[in-house]
């Protein structure tokens, strides 16, 4: 029995050795990004191309935009790729990041039950704000991310344009889940509620229930993604060269083509627009 | 074989209290080497307590337990077997080996000593049997063998046959006799007056935590000096 224990212990120690990070093995960078890019499958589509060309592995930590910026501010990532222009500019102004570049956009869409009890269904420019007003008037259930993400920030901007005080309705017809896009869509599907989502997550989302797209095509709903290098002067350990290589590739013709070529069910999810 | 002896064992004014109750009262006594010393007395007389005080498991509240030729902390020269000995969850042989190892005996000598102890207890065939699977009588014999393996000069036994059938009792008594022949002084408690008559060289009679009589066995059994001992031997209830 003692021998068995001894060999067991040896096996464990061996496992422990294997568990140590394989950092020395190859070069890698950590990218803090949003759930929308990870869960839509975009990264899975484009990253292997970059790694093949550069030999740099990209490790994506998918969080909400707010949390991703916080992670980067702590120096726990080399690059951030998020979608909240206002917050991104503040991040750079505060000295946490440098070299912000636009990469691509997708768009937000308003999802709701097929029956559309608030009669919010509409198309095209300027359709979003009135649709939200109708939902508020009907006090139809609306589910919000409530997690300080880029999508959440955009949603709050629309509500304020609509002149609706959602804070007052919180817990009533307005429900904040405090979670990512996917869990929020799950909640909306279960409640037959309205919800603002990014198109990428919606297209790859499987548990749709009775929900469908009600409002789309409003230019106000464009959702710009930017990429920022974490300030190497502030965090000297940041892999600036590898990070810049990634940013250069993303904004290069090659990278932009890779983004454009990603489709789900024949539908393009992200539209490259690097300058 | 032995060039010094820890006996006689001397108790000077030993008292023991627990929970505000005085359980052992000012006992003065001297136990010499020789035939077995048997502690007798009704339940609650303090027999087991006195054994534990002598063995060093309990410290007297007042008074002293003095062994000759020995610093205070050398338990290996006197050992104890409990009424319900605790067997380790391992083989009979390993139980004895464990006790020897605790006393710092090297692996080479241990092997021989384990075999001898098992032989003495008649348990050689059960060497590899898990100790807890042994019968009550076998476990008691193993406990004695384990205590004896370190060759103690004194062996305390607390009611060693209390819950055994007559056949097992006989085997244990035989083993006690063998241990005694090997030169180990036996100090034990028992409830069984027949056993006391069979084994005793001298008797310590306790009652209510006091030492009432301390005499050679023969005169004690034929003519007890005190009324308490007389009543006890007659089978009267005492308290």
């Amino acid at each position, binding site marked *: *029995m003692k021998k*068995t224990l001894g060999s067991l*212990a040896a096996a*464990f120690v061996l*496992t*422990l050795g*294997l*568990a*140590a*990070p394989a*950092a020395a093995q190859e070069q890698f960078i*950590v990218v803090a990004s949003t*759930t929308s890019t990870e*869960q839509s499958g975009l990264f*899975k589509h484009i990253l292997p191309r970059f790694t093949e060309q550069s030999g740099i592995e990209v*490790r*994506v*930590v*998918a969080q909400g935009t707010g949390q991703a910026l916080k992670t980067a*501010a*702590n*120096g*726990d990532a080399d690059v951030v790729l998020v979608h909240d222009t206002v917050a991104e500019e503040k991040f750079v102004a505060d000295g946490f990041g440098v070299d912000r570049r636009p990469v691509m956009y997708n768009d937000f869409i308003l999802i709701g039950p097929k029956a559309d009890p608030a009669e919010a269904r509409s198309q095209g420019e300027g359709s979003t704000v009135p649709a939200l007003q109708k939902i508020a008037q009907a006090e139809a259930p609306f589910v919000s991310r409530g997690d300080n993400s880029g999508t959440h920030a955009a949603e709050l901007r629309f509500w304020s344009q609509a002149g609706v005080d959602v804070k007052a309705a919180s817990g009533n017809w307005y429900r904040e889940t405090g979670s*990512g*896009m*996917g*869990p929020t*869509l*799950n909640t909306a*599907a279960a409640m037959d509620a309205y919800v603002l989502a990014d198109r990428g997550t919606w297209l*790859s*989302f*499987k*548990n*749709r229930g009775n929900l469908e797209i009600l409002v789309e095509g409003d230019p106000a709903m464009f959702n710009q993604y930017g990429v920022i290098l974490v300030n190497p002067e502030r*965090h000297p*350990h940041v892999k600036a060269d590898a990070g810049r290589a990634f940013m250069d590739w993303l904004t290069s013709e090659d990278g932009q083509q890779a983004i454009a070529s990603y489709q789900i069910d024949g539908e393009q999810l992200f539209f490259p627009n690097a300058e | 074989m032995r060039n010094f002896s820890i006996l006689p064992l001397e108790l000077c004014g030993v008292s023991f209290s627990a929970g505000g109750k005085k359980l052992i009262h000012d006992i003065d006594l001297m136990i010499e080497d020789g035939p077995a010393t048997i502690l007798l007395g009704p339940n609650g007389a303090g027999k087991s307590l006195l054994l*534990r005080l002598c*063995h060093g*498991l309990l410290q007297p509240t007042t008074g002293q337990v003095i062994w000759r030729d020995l610093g205070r902390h050398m*338990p*290996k020269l006197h*050992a*104890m077997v*409990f009424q319900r*000995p*605790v067997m*380790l*969850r391992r*083989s009979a042989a390993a139980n004895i080996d*464990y*006790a020897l190892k*605790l*006393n710092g005996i090297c692996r080479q000598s241990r092997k021989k000593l384990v075999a001898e102890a098992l032989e003495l207890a008649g348990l050689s*065939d059960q*060497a*590899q*049997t*898990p100790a807890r699977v042994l019968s009550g009588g076998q476990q008691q014999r193993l406990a004695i063998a384990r*205590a004896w393996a370190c060759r103690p000069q004194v062996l305390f036994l607390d009611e060693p046959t209390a819950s055994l059938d007559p056949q097992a009792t006989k085997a244990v008594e035989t083993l006690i006799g063998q241990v005694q022949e090997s030169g180990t002084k036996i100090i034990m408690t028992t409830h069984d007056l027949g056993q006391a008559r069979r084994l005793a060289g001298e008797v310590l009679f306790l009652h209510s935590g006091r030492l009432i009589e301390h005499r050679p066995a023969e005169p004690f059994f034929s003519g007890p000096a005190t009324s308490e001992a007389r009543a006890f031997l007659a089978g009267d209830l005492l308290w």
Partner: protein
Amino acid sequence: MSTIGESFAAALALILGMDPALREIVGLSLQVSLTAVFLAALIGLPLGALLALSSFPGRGAVIVLSNTLMGLPPVVVGLLVYLMLSRAGPFGVLSLLYTPTAMIIAQVVLVTPIIVAYSRQVVEDLWTEYGEQLRSLGAGRLSATPTLLWEGRFPLTTGILAGFGRASAEVGAVMIVGGNIEHVTRVMTTAIALEVSRGDLPLALGLGIVLLILSLGVNAATALLAMATRQERRLMRRRVA
């Protein structure tokens, strides 16, 4: 087909297909949780035994504290370990965040209190039973510690399995300190959380079933080991006889 039915079909397909991605995730899950439990046992068993056998002022408070730590929410542990390992934290220079090592550290923190509590209780009970005998044989409290841990190996195994259960089932801590990075720190539970996010509930539940089978495997292996030990003894006995 119902979601539950689809889930079983998904689980079956995953297992039968020996999906390489699944194999990687299962492998990492086992590696992280088993290592964490092994280290937690290394820390927790002697600590629990010491707590059981020693007496010092404030011992009661320490026991209450360690029992309370059993109820620590994994997310909180994750957050604490994150703050320690973050570049902005005291151990940032070690570059451990978002690595399997960080996940192991978080799970060690989660599991150790369970093992401490089990071993304290087991050793305390054993000391009541064995204490006098061991002292008589010449063992002190300190030298009795390994003996008692060995004597209590069967109930202690239960405690270690409980620890493994907590480690392999938790998602909050490993999500925060591991980051759920594909091929690097994605384990069963974070993969399940991801599939829930993507609304692929059958696949999520399918992965859950695989996790359950995994846990069953570990428990069964432990039971078999215990049985084999007894068998071995029986054989040895027969050989002697």
